[in-house]
């Protein structure tokens, strides 16, 4: 990890000293964004609002505050086969700030997440730097969370510690006035109580046995993204931007031996000048963790029957529509927009069975969002 940090810092310094001409990063704006999200599938329902308010100060500084509430109701397959249906509320609050130092944007934030059996404090620090006439943007982010894991049904369980550290590096390059490429690399390191305190594994003779996870997990993700603009053809040459296409690929692996491939394609098109429609398809496939099993020998040291650690694939298909009224000012509200989104997800598990019927498990989910935002 120290070696990686040294490499990244060296690259920043190298690029900084070799930059011939550097443009200033765009100044922040006063902005409000609100969204209401809904997820329903596999017996789980999550719904709730979120808001974020950003305030610019003296042209170079911005502060922002955000809040999110999730109302969770769960009768998932794990819950109905091992416990009782439950409902709970999760609240999340974020406070952050950023400042432009010369040609570098530095940001920091704190996030508190609270639910009856889980609390999390996350601190994040990031920096972005534009180079070569803004053709290359270099970003780094470090985030660390300190979490407490509880168990609602067992007062003797107490609170177990869990922490996660994320190191993210990102390079975004504009290769032409119509073509962007981004490369991201992220390392995540988990320590502490990684188990789910409510779930059990199944032995080879179908008896419930305790799950037992290693107490550390390190993962690496590599992401490649590219976006290309298509222009309107006019008699005088290229006109306004008509549509854009984005393609993503991610490879992930970790010390649990989970390996996955993720591919996504997104297409956006202006229907008329103030209506932006989008459609995406995302495919995900992963191999199971080394200690995962649908049925496990009792004497195996590490044991998990978490379907998220099994071998499975999922397909996401989504649509979005964004509308910006032609009238740009409504009193103190400027540049308002409305956006709606819907996506459908199909999960198919290759080695996770439904204990109620012995068949391979699959589930479908629907995701809906409605958002509104403006400058002020």
């Amino acid at each position: 990890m120290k070696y990686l940090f040294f490499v990244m810092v060296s690259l920043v310094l190298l690029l900084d000293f070799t930059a011939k001409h550097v443009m200033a990063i765009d100044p922040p704006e006063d902005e409000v964004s609100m969204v209401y999200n809904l997820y329903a599938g596999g017996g789980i329902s999550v719904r709730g609002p979120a808001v974020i308010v950003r305030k610019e100060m003296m042209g170079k500084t911005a502060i922002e505050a955000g809040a999110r509430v999730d109302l969770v109701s769960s009768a998932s397959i794990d819950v109905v086969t091992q416990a009782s249906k439950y409902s709970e509320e999760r609240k999340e609050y974020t406070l952050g700030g950023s400042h432009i130092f010369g040609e570098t944007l530095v940001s920091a934030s704190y996030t508190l997440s609270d639910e009856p059996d889980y609390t999390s404090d996350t601190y994040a620090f990031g920096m972005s730097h534009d180079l070569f006439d803004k053709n290359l943007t270099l970003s780094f982010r470090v985030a660390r969370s300190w979490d407490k894991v509880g168990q609602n049904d067992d007062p003797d369980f107490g609170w177990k510690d869990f922490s996660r550290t994320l190191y993210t590096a990102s390079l975004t390059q504009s290769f032409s006035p119509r073509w962007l490429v981004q490369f991201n690399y992220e390392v995540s390191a988990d320590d502490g109580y990684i188990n789910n305190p409510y779930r059990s594994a199944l032995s080879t003779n179908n008896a419930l046995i305790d799950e037992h996870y290693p107490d550390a997990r390190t993962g690496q993700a590599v992401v490649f993204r590219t976006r290309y603009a298509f222009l309107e053809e006019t008699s005088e040459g290229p006109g306004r931007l008509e549509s854009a296409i984005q393609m993503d690929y991610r490879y992930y692996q970790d010390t649990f031996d989970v390996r996955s491939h993720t591919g996504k394609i997104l297409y956006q098109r202006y229907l008329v000048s103030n209506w932006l429609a989008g459609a995406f398809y995302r495919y995900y496939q992963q191999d199971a963790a080394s200690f995962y099993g649908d049925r496990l020998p009792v004497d195996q040291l590490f044991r998990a029957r978490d379907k998220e650690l099994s071998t499975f694939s999922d397909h996401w298909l989504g649509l979005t529509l964004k509308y910006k009224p032609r009238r740009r000012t409504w009193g103190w509200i400027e540049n308002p927009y409305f956006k709606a989104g819907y996506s459908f997800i199909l999960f198919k598990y290759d080695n996770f069975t439904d204990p109620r019927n012995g068949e391979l498990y699959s589930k479908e989910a629907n995701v809906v969002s409605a958002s509104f935002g403006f400058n002020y």
Partner: protein
Amino acid sequence: MKTKPRIYLSLILLALLFSGLAGCASVRPWEREYLADEAMSFDPDPLETSWHLHLEEVSEGSRGGYSGTGGGCGCR
């Protein structure tokens, strides 16, 4: 993580490739009209993105690569 040195070497090579290409690619400030359009943003709606990343993280065994997300999961 037997592949660690190979991954770090790939990262360094890719970073050098990007920085080398950056010198060749010359999109001038007055040519950035299309790149500044919201349809060309990788993350036009941070609230929506964080919600989708959270859903992916609690539904799948992989995480990360796009941006960090914190907090509990509400997902058992």
